């Protein structure tokens, strides 16, 4: 086929990347000692990160084609292949996933005392599942990874979570499953429509009747909108985030939420371009509601983790807004914002986890004056605060600006409305910072108090440092990431804007066509 480039390297790099964590997890089965388990897991994740790096360095930025492709027959009678590869959209998420996995192992070093072996097995299985989702180019393979990733996450929340963990875990699982099952129906329909192939690239290159596109878009939308999560499918998120252990929250915010938007980019847009253009307006409305709604709810939160969770709703609203602006700036901004959100919100959850280990409270009102108690912690936290607000010089600005630019270009009104989210964002983050770090501290937490809180130690600084560096790196030189996307995004937009139904641009006219 002409739109793939077979693996440029001499070894199957993607297979190694995806299955190394599985191998590590199998290795853990033979271990008893918790320390050994931690070291093995850390080494596995680090090794995965290291072997995934050639993907970035050897990546051909000039082409939109799938690269590092591996293809083998798997179940030939059903037309199922082991078919994996990456392009400019997925390569960044591989990087994000392997990096955040290392950090989430590091942050769990002391926090997980109970069932350490099972915990680390789950983390590794989760990493493999997430990587698989981003590389799969066959729907069967994709769906297996998509669902496989749910189980370890379910366990992470349900076993190592907070007091409400079971409720949160089941809610998370069912919510996601309902969406996924609808997607499965969509996949089956696609399989039969296309005459028995599950090859994602082939399926993307076909044209489907508008009516079919409409229903299939909705089926896929169900799965992805829950994952993003878009308003009003977001209520699993605060519970899952709040109850999950730190590592779970980090991976959830950093990678799992990206799956939805990634799905839009990889499946919905190229396969159902006409339906995509039809749904721009509803999705814009939902995104803007999500942005403002998420921010307003943040203003009323009393719990640190819940606040950050709701801020994710707001930030992911920006992502969908950008993606469905259907222009280069919007889509690239959306992708960049996904990476940014992974970095910034991931780091925020890391930091909240660190302080929670010390104070055992997540209630904002219990804090105050912590800039005096833990100055280095406060210093790093303010960087994250402003990256989250989207201050120029941090990565958040680049993403938000490109998204607002794209949205404004597409539909002025929604661009303007979304920009109000930037004001509210400053409102709740600064309010949080003031409550937690400024004013006078509770003497209990001071060095001579009853519960002295110590500042960051070396392990924690090492955990946070890569993310802080990335914040500024992307902020001052975003082309380091943007350059990967250009070719793929351009190709994607060509696909979407190539209209088979030109002239029936209004929603009403198209709906008449369908019904």
């Amino acid at each position: 086929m002409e739109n793939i480039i077979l693996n440029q390297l001499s070894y199957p790099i993607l297979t190694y990347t995806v299955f190394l964590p599985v191998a590590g997890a199998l290795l853990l089965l033979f271990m008893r000692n918790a320390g050994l388990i931690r070291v093995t897991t850390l080494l596995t994740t680090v090794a995965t990160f290291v072997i995934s790096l050639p993907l970035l360095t050897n990546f051909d930025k000039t082409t939109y084609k799938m690269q590092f492709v591996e293809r083998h027959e798997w179940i030939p009678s059903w037309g199922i292949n082991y078919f994996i590869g990456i392009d400019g959209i997925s390569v960044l998420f591989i990087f994000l996933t392997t990096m955040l996995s290392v950090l989430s192992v590091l942050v769990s070093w002391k926090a997980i005392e109970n069932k350490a072996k099972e915990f680390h097995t789950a983390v590794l299985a989760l990493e493999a599942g997430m990587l698989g989702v981003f590389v799969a180019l066959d729907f069967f393979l994709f769906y297996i990874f998509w669902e496989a990733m749910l189980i370890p996450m379910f366990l992470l929340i349900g076993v190592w979570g907070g007091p409400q963990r079971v409720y949160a875990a089941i809610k998370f699982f069912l919510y996601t499953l309902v969406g996924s099952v609808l997607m499965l129906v969509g996949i089956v329909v696609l399989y039969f429509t296309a005459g028995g192939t599950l090859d994602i690239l082939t399926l993307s290159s076909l044209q489907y009747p508008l009516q079919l596109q409409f229903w299939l878009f909705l089926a896929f939308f169900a799965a992805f909108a829950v994952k993003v999560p878009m308003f009003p499918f977001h209520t699993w998120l605060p519970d899952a985030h709040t109850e999950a252990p730190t590592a779970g929250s980090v991976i959830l915010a950093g990678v799992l939420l990206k799956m939805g938007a990634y799905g839009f980019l990889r499946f919905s847009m190229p396969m159902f371009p006409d339906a995509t253009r039809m749904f721009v307006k509803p999705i814009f409305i939902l995104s803007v509601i999500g942005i403002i709604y998420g921010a307003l709810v943040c203003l009323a939160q009393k719990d640190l983790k819940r606040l950050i969770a709701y801020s994710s709703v707001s930030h992911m609203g920006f992502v969908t807004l950008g993606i469905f602006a259907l222009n280069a700036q919007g889509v690239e901004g959306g992708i960049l914002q996904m990476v940014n959100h992974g970095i910034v919100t991931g780091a925020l959850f890391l930091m909240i986890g660190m302080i929670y280990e010390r104070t055992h409270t997540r209630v904002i009102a219990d804090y105050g004056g912590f800039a005096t108690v833990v100055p280095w912690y406060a210093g790093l936290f303010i960087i994250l605060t402003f990256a989250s607000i989207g201050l120029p010089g941090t990565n958040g600005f680049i993403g938000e600006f490109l998204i607002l630019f794209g949205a404004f270009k597409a539909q002025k009104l929604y661009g303007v409305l979304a920009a109000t989210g930037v004001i509210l964002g400053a409102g709740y983050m600064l309010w949080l910072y003031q409550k937690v770090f400024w004013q006078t501290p509770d003497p209990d937490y001071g060095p001579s108090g009853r519960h002295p809180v110590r500042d960051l130690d070396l392990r924690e600084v090492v955990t946070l440092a890569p993310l802080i560096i990335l914040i500024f790196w992307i902020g001052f030189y975003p082309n380091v990431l943007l350059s990967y996307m250009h070719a793929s995004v351009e190709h994607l937009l060509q696909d979407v804007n190539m209209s088979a139904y030109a002239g029936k641009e209004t929603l009403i006219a198209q709906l008449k066509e369908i019904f």
Partner: protein
Amino acid sequence: MLKYTLIPLLPLLSFIINILFGRNFIKDKAHWIAVPAVAGSFILAVSAFMDVTAGNVVNINIYDWIVSGDFHVSIGFLIDQLTSIMLIVVTSISTLIFIYSIGYMHGDGGYYRFFAYLSLFVFSMLMLVMANNFLLLYFGWEAVGLCSYFLIGFWFHKKSAADAGKKAFIVNRFGDFGFGLGVILIFLTYGSIDYVQVFSNAGSVVGQTINILGTDYDLITVICLLLFCGAVGKSAQLPLHVWLPDAMEGPTPVSALIHAATMVTAGVFMVARCNPLFNLSHTAMNTVAIVGGLTAIFAATIGLVQNDIKRVIAYSTVSQLGYMFLALGVGAYSAGIFHLYTHAYFKALLFLGSGSVIHALHDEQNMQKMGGLKKYMPITYAVFIIATLSITGIPGLAGFFSKDEILYRAYLGGDTGKFLWLLGTVAALLTSFYSWRLIFLTFHGKFRGTHEQEHHLHESPKVITVPLMFLAVGAIFAGYVGIPPLLMEHGDRIGEFLAPVLGHPHSEGSHAEEMMVMAGSVLVALGGWFIAYRMYIKSPELPKKVGEMFKPVYNLLFNKYYVDELYSKTLVQPVIKASDKVVLGFIDIKIIEGIVNGVPALIGAFSRKFRQVQTGHLSNYGLAMALGALAIIGYMIFMK
């Protein structure tokens, strides 16, 4: 090129070193890094200024910042006449204030932090003035806001300081919201956000309209007004002025540097920078002028009755910024920049002088508890007098030249111009009054503080007074670069210097008119002094009587026209309440969670009913099976 890059880079280095190593290693030696860095910037800025006067306008791109689709923006510097003047103002005043801070902040626990933030501020401000495109301007714009946030909240253990920092940032965000949209609209209109390209194509879209919610508006007007939104926020104009007085919670050097001399003038700088756009929109120009004029008089009236020494000066700053916008709005851009430049010196001097007073009185800021400081602090008193003479526009000092220029240009500005001139002149009268009131309350009469304080009264150390003297020199002589043609042929050197960027003023008037305006402004300056003298020296019981007589007016002014209360009641409280009660409490918890938990609950309820079919008795199952078999057999026999 390296030279220009180093101008902002030196303070940035100072910031990085101080913030990383200040806490554990540098501690109270922070100024050893910060002062040389900013002084180095000053020297480089002077050299850049020399280059520009020699005719070398520099426009360099350093590297590509953001590239996405057809959107392209670089990190790059434009150093022209306007920038070079701003560079001189920013770096010279920064250097003096850094030195002053060595004395003022001595012994503070966050000494290293203070110099780190201050260095970061200088870096940001330099990026702001040196940018060669709108997005980099926006970068500097937000970054100075960030530093302002840190520095206002420098003493963060005080709730008032923490609140003020947050308020400043969020109020500014309202302005930046418009500014950001303006930048986007500029790109969509001109296909570029580089100054040079935008300004050279500025005229190409005259007459185009933009549709907003069904109504067509003039495109350029919309762009200009959006940009002006940003200026209103940053330069504390009506109706976003509320953050600046509160910003006085920061240490006094911060008030002098950020909230008087440099950052708050960024809006003026930006509008002047965008003059090719503003010139094309009559509506936008009028808006700028009227907002400026109204702010000038609005803030001056509040300044009349305040008792906190720093707040009086803060309102004076808001008022003077209004003057600058007034000048920009009537097309006298160079007059606006000229006033920006002279104002930087005398206002920094006023703030630092008040800092010297506050320092001597151990953090007392209420003027009602001062008085008679003249004999204890002669140098401070002298510089205060110089600054006041300058700000009130007494001939021969810096303020006179720039203020006179503004009033004269306003006077020539047609019908609205006359009105604006009137506003400006009345504001000048008020300015003169409250400035002298400040002097009389602080330095004259008898000391009204505690004995303890009186015992410790002393002149400030040299590290504080020497920068004051330097600034005083500036406050006297800075104006001589812009002598009106009436007094000296080719005296308006700054106007001519800036003409390549800002153009020439649109209107010319007669000598007689100029004389009249000048005489008028001198007259009101003296008038203000006279009234203040009558009220505070001759008969000190008079202010109270006047206050009693006009009780409602006094209360209105004393409470700053209740603007803060208005915003709190109509905007802040409703949003917070709505987010808690309506959005979270009702929509999220009741409706969405209701549906999410309601559907499973419904299924559960149904199942609980339905499961009673399962009796558990074997014979029931058997009977059902038998009946089923019978039904099937019956169907096969009778229906087939």
